[in-house]
């Protein structure tokens, strides 16, 4: 996990969620709050997929 390519996703998620939130709000606090929500949602979604793939690869053996 430590040497995984998945770490490349972290800066992308941070940058995307901040820019996305900034294009949908004007207030600083709202931007940060929205960015946190979006970031967590993406990370959760990707994490869910990761676990699913892991499970499938485990059962497929």
């Amino acid at each position, binding site marked *: 996990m430590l040497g995984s390519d998945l770490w490349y996703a972290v800066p992308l998620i941070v940058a995307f969620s901040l*820019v996305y939130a*900034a294009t949908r709000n004007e207030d600083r606090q709202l*931007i940060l709050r929205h960015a946190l929500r979006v970031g967590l949602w993406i990370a959760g979604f990707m994490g869910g997929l990761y676990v699913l793939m892991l499970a499938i690869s485990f059962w497929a053996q």
Partner: protein
Amino acid sequence: MAATPEKPPTTPPIHLKDRRIAAFLAWLVPGLGHFYQGRRFKAIVFFVCIFGTYSYGLALGEGRVVYAPTRDTGEQFRLNLGGRKLAVGWRQLQFLTQAAVGLPIAPAVAAAYIDPDGSLPLAFGNRWFMPPDTQELNELYLLMPRRFEMGTLFTLVAGLLNILAIFDAYGGPVILEPKKREEDEEEDKKDGEKKGKEAEPEKAA
């Protein structure tokens, strides 16, 4: 006395100044359009996120992931535009997306069209931004397979993110309405019913 519900922070009035200039500046340097409009926090967010993503991608690919396509356009696909068929190279499309970052891609244009021989000390003196031919491109993929792919991806994402920022500079944010509370919705329903009842006798008369 009932406690008044906490109001969500309201959006301050936005003065977009000259939208076209703002959009152009936003394309030129990420965040510059917003800085011109006085939206400094967003300017910082856009600059750090977009320019940071672009720079990180460029560094990952050792300066070879951003290049202006020249004669060798590589693989092409065909677009059908109202009967007209247009052949577009993947590399052209890639550069078009990266070009949305604005001025940071200027060295790539210079390397491809002003200094194609690499005789001028452009861009750190290395082969940064120089358009590779197909053979060199294959070698680059072999030399740094993941980093080259990731570098390309990061610079592409930076370009796409700046398109969002350009739209924001031109038209302002897509303000999201706060979700209505159930109590408010019930009040709206009651108001609607009241109005309906008031309108009935008028119709009968």
